C-alpha cells in the first residue's frame, strides 16, 4: 500500500514528515539536518535531512531543477562561490559542522572532492592536471613521490594504461570519457574521503559511461560517494541507496532496490515509471 504523504508547510526542527523512508545510514559519515538553501528570494532546498554512509554510493535522482545538484554542492561548500546563495541548517562531516564559522573551506574541499557534469581539465598537461591538487596542498615532498601519487591516481581512475606514454600532452587533447576519468583522477589525487559527482556521465557516450560506472563501483571501497544522475538505470546500477528529490524537497530515500521495485511515495513512483520528468 502506498503512503500518500501530505507535503507539510511546517518549518524547522520536527520530524521529516515530507520524507518517506529511513534518512539515516547504519554507518553515517555525513549527517545533514534541516538544510535549507536560498538563491536570493528563491527557496531552492527546503528542510532536507539525509545521512550518507561510509563506503556507500548514494544516488540523488529527480526532475531537473529539483535541487539535487544544489544539495551536493552544499556538501563541499561550492555554493559559497555563487553570489546571493545562503545555506542554513546543519551539515556534519566526521563530527565537524562544515558550515561552522571557524571552518576553513580549503581543507574541507580537499576532504570532499567533486567531479562535474562537463569534464573540465585545466589547460595543462595530463600530469600537471593530476599533480595540481597534491601540489597546492603540499601533500608530497619530492618529485618521485608526486610521480607516484599521479600514477596511483591515474591507475585508480582506470586511465593509466591509456595515457602513461602521453603524460605531457595537454589534458584537453583527450576524448570526453578520458577527460572525465582524468578529472576523477585529479579529484582522488588529493586523497579525499568523500567524492561528489554531479551528473558525471551526462556528456559521455555509453562506452565511456560504462567505464565510469565500473570505476565508481571500485572507488566505493575507499570513498563515500554521492552521485547526481538523470539516468535511473545508472542510479540502479551504481548505488546502494537512492534519494528522490522533488521541487526542493527530499521526497523519499531508501535502499536502491526498494526504491526502484517498490517505491512508497506516489511522486517517486510517478517519476521512476516515467510518468513525468
Amino acid at each position, binding site marked *: 500500500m502506498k503512503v500518500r504523504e501530505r507535503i507539510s508547510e511546517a518549518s524547522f526542527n520536527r520530524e521529516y514528515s515530507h520524507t518517506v523512508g529511513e534518512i539515516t545510514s547504519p554507518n553515517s559519515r555525513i549527517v545533514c539536518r534541516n538544510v535549507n538553501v536560498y538563491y536570493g528570494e528563491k527557496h531552492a532546498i527546503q528542510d532536507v535531512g539525509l545521512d550518507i554512509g561510509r563506503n556507500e554510493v548514494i544516488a540523488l535522482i529527480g526532475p531537473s531543477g529539483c535541487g539535487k545538484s544544489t544539495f551536493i554542492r552544499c556538501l*563541499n561548500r*561550492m555554493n559559497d*562561490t555563487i*553570489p546571493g546563495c545562503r545555506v542554513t541548517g546543519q551539515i556534519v562531516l566526521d563530527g565537524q559542522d562544515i558550515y561552522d564559522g571557524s571552518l576553513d*573551506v*580549503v*581543507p*574541507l*574541499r*580537499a576532504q570532499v*572532492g*567533486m567531479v*562535474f557534469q*562537463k569534464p*573540465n*581539465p*585545466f*589547460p*595543462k598537461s595530463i600530469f600537471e592536471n593530476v599533480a*595540481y*591538487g597534491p601540489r*597546492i*596542498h603540499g601533500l608530497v615532498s619530492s618529485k618521485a613521490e608526486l610521480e607516484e601519487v599521479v600514477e596511483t591516481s591515474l591507475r585508480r581512475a582506470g586511465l593509466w594504461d591509456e595515457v602513461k606514454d602521453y603524460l605531457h600532452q595537454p589534458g*584537453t587533447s583527450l576524448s570526453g570519457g578520458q577527460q572525465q576519468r582524468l*578529472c576523477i583522477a*585529479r*579529484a582522488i589525487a*588529493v586523497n579525499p574521503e568523500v567524492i561528489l559527482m554531479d551528473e558525471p556521465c551526462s556528456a559521455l557516450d555509453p562506452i565511456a559511461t560504462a567505464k565510469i560506472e565500473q570505476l565508481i563501483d571500485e572507488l566505493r571501497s575507499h570513498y563515500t560517494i554521492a552521485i547526481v544522475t538523470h539516468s535511473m538505470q545508472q542510479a540502479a546500477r551504481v548505488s546502494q541507496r537512492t534519494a528522490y528529490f522533488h521541487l526542493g524537497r527530499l521526497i523519499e530515500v531508501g535502499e536502491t532496490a526498494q526504491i526502484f521495485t517498490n517505491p512508497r511515495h506516489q511522486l517517486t513512483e510517478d517519476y521512476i515509471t516515467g510518468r513525468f520528468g
Partner: protein
Amino acid sequence: MQKSTLLFLLVLLSAAAYHIGRRRSLQVAGGTVRSLHSLPSYYGYYAALWCGIPALLVLFLWTAFENSIVIQLVVSALPEELSSAPPDRIGLLVNDIRNVASGAVAGEIEPAVEAAANHYLRLKDTSNRLLSVLATFVAITGAAYARQRISKEHRARNHVEKSITVFLIVCSTLAVFTTIGIVLSVLFESIRFFKEVPITEFLFGLDWSPQMAIREDQVGSSGAFGAVPLFVGTLLISLIAMLVAVPIGLLSAIYLSEYASSRFRATAKPLLEILAGIPTVVYGFFAALVVAPFVRDLGARIGLDVSSESALAAGLVMGIMIIPFVSSLSDDFINAVPQSLRDGAYALGATQSETIRQVIIPAALPGIVGGVLLAVSRAIGETMIVVMAAGLTANLTANPLAAVTTVTTQIVTLLVGDQEFDSPKTLAAFALGLVLFLATLALNIIALHIVRKYREQYE
C-alpha cells in the same frame, strides 16, 4: 541647365517612375494584387531604378570626361603659334583660359586667350545642354522600358533585391579599395625614395638628419637617412609604455573580473574605459606640460640629468593611455574562461589566488598576449603624445632619460611646412610610413591570429 538642377530633375523623374510602375502593376493585375509575382511597390522601385540609374550613370560619365574633352577641343582650336608650344606651356595657357572664362583676371588680356576663353564657355554651354537632353531622354526611356516590361509574371522583387545587393557590394568594396589605394600610393612614393637613398642605408643607417642642402654652402644639412635611431626611439617609448600599461592593465582586469563586487565593477569599468576616450592631443599636452617637467625635476632632485623631453615622460603617458586597451581586452578574456575551470580548481581546495594564478591566467594567456600585441601596435603608431612630448632629436640611445624621437614624430616634422615633393626629405616620410604600416600590420595579424585560435578553444 545646372548639374544640380538636372540631378533634382532626375530624382523627380524617378519618383514619377515609381508611381507609374506601381499603377501599371495594379492595372495588369486587374485589381487583385495576389495574382502579381511581387508586391506593387516592387514594380514601382523597379521602374524607378530603370529610370534613375542609367541616367545617373550618363551624368556621372559625362561629368568625368567633359572637362578633358572640352580642353582638348579648345587647345586644338588655338592659333598655330600657341598650340605648338611645349606641354607645360600649354598647361599654363589652359589655366589662363579658365581664369579668363571665370572672370577672375583683371587687366590686359591677350586677344587669342580671350577668344579661346569664349570658345571654352560656348563649348561648356553646349555640353551642358546636350547632357540635360541626353540624361532626361535616358531617364524617360528607362522608365518607359520598365513600364512596358511589367506583367503579372514579371519578377520585379528579384530584380530590385539584386540591385540592392550590387549597391551593398559597391559600398563595401569602396572602403577596401581606398585602403589599397593608400597602400599603393605610400608604396610607390617609397620606391621613389629608395631610388635616391638605398634601402639598406635607410633600414640600417645609424644617422638621421633629413635636412637637405639647397645651396652648396649650407652647413648642418647632411641629408642622412639612416632610420635606426627612429626605430630605436619608437621601440624605447613603446617599451616604457608597455611596462606601464601591461602590469596595471592586467592587474586591474584581474581585480575587476575576479575580486570586485558587481556594483564596483559596473562603475569602475566604464570609468577606466573613459581613459580610452580622451583625445590623444590632451594626453600630449599633459605629457609635455605636466609629466615631463615633473620627471625632470624628480631626476634633478636625485642627481640625474634628465632631458626636459625625455622618452620616460612620453612613455609613461602613452602607457596610461593604453591601460584601457590592455585591461578591457584582458578582462574579456578572463571572463571568457569557463566557470567550470574555476569550479574545478575550487573543488580541489585551491584558494582564489591559486585559482587565478595557476588556472585562469594560463587559460586566458593567449588572449591576453593577443590583446597586449594589439596595444603594442597602437603604441607604435601613436603620434600626438610623442610629437608633443618626445622631442625631435634623433638620438641613438637606450637611455630613457634622454630625448629621443619616433617614426611618427619624424613623419609629422617632414611633412609640416613648405616642402618639395621630389626631394628625398619629403619622400622619406612615405618610406617611414610604409615601415610603420608594415610593422603594425604584422602585429595586428599575429595578434588577431592568436586571439582567434584562443576563441576556438572554448566555443
